[in-house]
């Protein structure tokens, strides 16, 4: 066994340039695979982070159409509802359209109560509730644009016309890494009062109601009950779980996600072909050595295991380096992608997938050379050129 390990280890280091180049290819491929999987996973982060007892009520025709804010009390009166809050997607532009980040007008007090994953200090909360033009920004957003308490920033409305000024009251953090801290929240009453002046038709309306249900077991009944309240009204509602809503949202980009997933596996397939070629070349060069081993009494299985060991060792070294590099590269990518990805957190599943991919590449790349080296007759092997 120890001799086998010695031979495997030294064979790995035998052609350093070739091994290094193969390793570079492997690292890039497994890293790319990990990053692409992380991007897909992040896309679904909202789904994973959804709270099962939280419902979202929106306009039944489309979530781009509003609902009357007056629904607030009627929803709150439905049996099984613990509390309700509401929000509007704002969609403003900060200086330049490329500076995209999510902005929501929220009913501050009820929203912060219902979304405990948004962590704000008491001081910031008080300031936010005190200042009608106040806004709170996530840590990532604050870092990106250098926002700090007291700053006045201006957004140009796209859905809601005109320029909108906000005073930054403070910065919020996420309870866990999945919480999106690239968002800006400002007060819905500020939006509404301004709209009453600027665009009366858009006033007193909200995009979504978020509903907290007393028990997870009542989710289906409460959803149905809310929608029944507004059946045959001018703005019928569709109530679904936060998770179902997120899935529906993500499904709109499913084709892109499927493409990314396919590309991630194509990358692995390409490196498998490269690695298989390397191992085939290596085994071909060493046929005489393998024949010598077999001549002096080693079994074809031993020879096959030498090739397998070398291939798996190279693949696992490359895989380990790639796995080590994935989190920092993902973090950098998240920074560079501005607020497109709130955070690119490499999941345990992704790491396991990366390790498995490396292992599979190592094993499959060795199959053909193993077969050949094990099967070649000693006489033919001894005649082979080294």
């Amino acid at each position, binding site marked *: 066994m120890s001799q086998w390990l010695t031979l495997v280890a*030294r064979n790995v280091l035998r052609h350093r340039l070739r091994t290094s180049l193969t390793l570079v290819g492997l690292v890039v491929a497994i890293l790319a695979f990990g990053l692409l999987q992380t991007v897909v996973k992040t896309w679904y982060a909202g789904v994973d982070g959804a709270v099962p007892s939280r419902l979202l009520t929106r306009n039944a025709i489309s979530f781009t159409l509003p609902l009357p804010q007056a629904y607030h009390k009627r929803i709150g009166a439905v049996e099984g509802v613990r509390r309700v809050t509401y929000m509007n997607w704002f969609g403003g532009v900060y200086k330049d359209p490329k500076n995209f980040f999510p902005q929501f007008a929220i009913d501050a007090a009820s929203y912060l109560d219902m979304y405990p994953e948004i962590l704000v200090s008491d001081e910031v909360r008080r300031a936010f509730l005190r200042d009608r033009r106040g806004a709170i920004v996530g840590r990532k957003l604050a870092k990106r644009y250098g926002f700090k308490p007291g700053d006045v920033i201006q957004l140009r409305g796209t859905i809601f016309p005109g320029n909108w000024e906000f005073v930054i009251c403070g910065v919020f953090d996420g309870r866990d890494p999945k919480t999106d801290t690239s968002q800006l929240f400002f007060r819905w009453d500020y939006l509404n009062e301004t709209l009453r002046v600027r665009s009366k038709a858009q006033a007193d309306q909200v995009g979504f109601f978020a509903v907290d249900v007393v028990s997870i077991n009542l989710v289906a009944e409460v959803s149905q009950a809310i929608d029944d309240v507004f059946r045959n009204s001018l703005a019928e509602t569709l109530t679904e779980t936060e998770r179902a809503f997120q899935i529906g949202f993500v499904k709109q980009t499913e084709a892109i996600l499927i493409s990314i997933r396919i590309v991630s596996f194509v990358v692995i397939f390409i490196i498998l072909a490269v690695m298989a070629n390397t191992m085939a070349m290596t085994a071909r060069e060493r046929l005489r050595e393998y024949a010598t081993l077999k*001549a*002096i009494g*080693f*079994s074809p299985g031993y020879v096959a295991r030498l090739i397998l060991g070398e291939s798996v060792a190279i693949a696992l070294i490359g895989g380990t380096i790639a796995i080590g590099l994935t989190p920092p590269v993902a973090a950098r990518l998240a920074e560079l992608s501005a607020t497109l990805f709130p955070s690119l957190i490499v999941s345990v599943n992704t790491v396991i997938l990366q390790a498995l991919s490396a292992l599979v590449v190592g094993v499959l790349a060795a199959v053909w050379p193993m077969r050949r080296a094990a099967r070649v007759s000693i006489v033919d092997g001894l005649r082979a050129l080294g």
Partner: protein
Amino acid sequence: MTVLRVSDAPTGEDVLIALSDVSKSYRRGGQIVPVLSKLTFDIRRKEFLALMGPSGSGKSTLLNLIAGIDSPDHGSIEVGGEDITLLPEADLADWRAANVGFIFQFYNLMPVLTALENVELPLTLTSLGRRDRRDRAQLALSLVGLSDRVKHLPSELSGGQQQRVAIARAIVTDPTMLVADEPTGDLDRQSAEEVLEIMQRLNRDLGKTIVMVTHDRRAAARARRIMHLEKGDLSYLVEQRLE
């Protein structure tokens, strides 16, 4: 020096290797090319036999058959009373590990292993512990005069030294016989003489049975007997009386 007929080849209790009616052919481009035809002869224990003959006469094929790395189309090869042609591949590998030491023209050392590790390699197939293996490998290397080169890689050794390492590897398991295919074919005259001297000593002092294929008359002169092959058949034997 005595020239004998093939029928005068020795028989009896001191026979180690007995070939009987051995034939071998190869298929080349759809044609069957006979290499050895109905060969019958014996090799004595403690023999040093040189196989000579022109290229294509079948001497390497014969050596491969005797060493158990190739199998005949027909006939039997008994070594120490055991017909190796009847052994399945796995048993044949074990048999080779225990009974045959190989010396190749191009040494065939593992380039990534040191001289000591190369010599130790066949011993990893035995039940010996690591320390015993190391001791035996050291001893084998000292027998070929390379005690001071144990940590050198093959690439750091001359051709002659590499062949001596290969000889040490061949004898380290104390096999029944040594088979050598052109052991001096890649060496200069002086290195060749050193290698032949070692082989002769192994035969004379340790009683190793050696079967050597060679084109080199001076190498063959070290053997006790020389067999000449012509077109897959034995043409004549030369019995040599060595000092």
